[in-house]
């Protein structure tokens, strides 16, 4: 990968996440602790399509939850209904570009459709990928990261108060090693 391409990808991701996630504190309050009833914004077809998309971005495995277990679709619906409402048109159109039958495609064909979208319209792909990551790793109060699925995956503990040693290398024996 050339420096130029990697640079574009990097900036593109930063730009997308900034766009997607730009809200007022009041919007955030409205978004926190969502109920688990009907979806506010997404239609049943969109729920199915985005659920399939999210499950390919961060797949589930035995013993290790993915986007599905983290309730990423619920998070996204909630976000589109509140702090990310201005992203609704872009989200809807990006999701539609995966094709009407996306949810019912066999997994290999879903992956192929996603690769095609990423290649033909990277920005649209990022409009869909970004909320998957936010819903996977944000504070659970926004309805995603259910049961801390995302944080458990990466090993982030939300204790918010630590004492040394923080990791392996600052244990007294390791820190004293002079090799």
């Amino acid at each position, binding site marked *: *990968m050339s*420096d130029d391409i*990697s*640079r574009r*990808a*990097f*900036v593109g*991701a*930063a730009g997308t*996440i*900034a766009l997607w*996630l*730009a*809200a007022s*504190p009041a919007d*955030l309050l409205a978004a926190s602790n969502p109920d688990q009833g009907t979806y506010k914004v997404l239609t049943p077809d969109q729920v199915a399509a985005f659920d399939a998309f999210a499950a*390919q*971005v*961060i*797949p589930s*495995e035995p013993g*290790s939850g*993915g986007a599905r277990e983290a309730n990423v679709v619920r998070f996204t619906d909630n976000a589109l209904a509140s*702090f990310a409402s201005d992203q609704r048109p872009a989200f809807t159109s990006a999701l539609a570009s995966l094709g009407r039958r996306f949810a019912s495609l066999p997994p290999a064909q879903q*992956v192929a459709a*996603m690769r095609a979208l990423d290649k033909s319209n990277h920005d649209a792909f990022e409009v869909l*990928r*970004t909320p*998957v*990551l*936010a819903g*996977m*790793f*944000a*504070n659970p*109060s*926004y309805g995603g990261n259910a049961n801390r699925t*995302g*944080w458990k*995956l*990466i*090993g*982030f503990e*939300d204790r*918010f*108060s*630590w*004492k*040394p*040693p*923080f*990791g*392996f*290398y*600052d244990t007294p024996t*390791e*820190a004293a*090693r*002079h090799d």
Partner: protein
Amino acid sequence: MTEQQAGVRYRPADEVDFVVIGAGAAGGVVARELSRSGFSVVVLEQGPYLRESDFHHDELAVLQLAALTNDFKRSPNTFRLRPEETAKPKNSVQYGRAVGGGTVHFTGNYWRFHEVDFVEHSRKGAVAGANRDDWPITYAELEPYYSRVEWEIGVSGEAGKNPFDPPRSRPYPLPPLPVKSTGVLLERGARKLGLHAAPSPMAILSRPYRGRAACVHCGFCETFGCEMRAKSSTLVTMIPEAEATGRCEIRPLSYVTRIESNAAGRVTGVAYLDAARRQVLQRAKAVVLSANGAESPRLLLNSTAARFPNGLANSSGVVGTHLMFNGGAFAGGLFEQPVNGYRGTVNSRIVQDFYELDAKHGIDGGGGIDFRHDLTPIAFANFGLPMDAPTWGMDYKHMLRDYYTRSVFMLAHTTQLPVPSNAISLDPTYKDAWGQPVIRTTFSDHANDVKLNRFMLDRGMELLDAAGATKTWPFPLEPLFPVVHLLGTCRMGNDPRKSVVDKYHRAHDVPNLFVVDGSSFVTSGRGQPTETIQALAFRASEHIARLAREGALRAGAKRS
């Protein structure tokens, strides 16, 4: 709480001794020093007055939604590479927008500048394409004020451990924060390469200090507010001490649009829009502008008058020019065992062997390096993995699982040369939500700085390798916008034709106007400007108070 606090109130029609614009790193110090010296002070702050109860470890709200920084939705920027281009909308500069300013959300790296930073021009000579100059003050003149900063706000560190440290008159008031795994690994790499790792000096309390609690190592320093009051922001140090004098009023949610001046060429007050967007004019005998390196020049340029057709204090045409924000290089390294860099302060050890480069490299300036982990989970999932890693799918998931706790990030902080055409100016087309022209940034890297960042990236990656990384990866070298550390745009100097303020931060053109913040810098140093901003603010305050006491700020007083 975002509303005004209890305490002294002045009426806008009252002519107060000073209006300070901006309650950040510099404005907080100036407000405290001037009110302690017996003067009446009104501080106008664009952002809200938040308290530690408002600070949460909520990445979505704080980091991604700009809860503590300028809001690009209401206050957009434009950007262009060169002056002959038409600027396009782009989030180009970022700064703290709250009482406490950038010190609320900063990382707390408190590096003093070194002696060379003030005299690099005369030592090394001119650099083509840059307009470097010596500062009108030396490190020795500023040293007592560095010590004041460290003791007044509370800085943790260990004097004598860094062989490259400039001379100091006092030790740190607090011992260094505990070493982290990232710090041990930097020590290990440095030892192997014959370099010197030293404890990071940080404006975070390692022990209780002046009624504030010690750090609990939550790991949410950078971009977050500190709910323990352990981070030594002006919000929990200078501001409450200013208010305690009974002479200082902090007015949050006050958006300054103009500094008013009269036919005699003196400033008379400050116009702002309050929270309800009502126009208010606060009268003042003198004004201290501490709005940061982007907002200070913007305000001067927006305050034209018959006598100041090019903007206030801008007879030189230098206002807004020579923008610098420090360069950098960023790389990742994967280690075998858990590093858990997300716990504790952002870094704990620094290497400054490359602060001044040997002439054989043919590169001006230099830099410092730390090992850190400052990517919270959403940011890590977006930006933390190597650039050629997958961005979705099972392999991506497994990499997130394997990398988050075992990654170390190398950040090099570097010189950025003062280039006249790199500038903050008023955009001729776009207006913000308050109807004011938006900040237009013009910036292109100087070729020397590109070479310097490449050099530092290579050294940093060698350090990761030497520390035992099983894999290392670089990140792109170009500046990532929006940029922070906004410096140099109202540079100080002895020559009124080439600088905006004198060595005491007094505007050359306006006897009762002072500009005190990162805009005063003549050179960028090597990163981590806040301690220098505050040392300058303590020093400036002393002189401003003296001038006011002597009557030298009154109309008709002769300028010394």
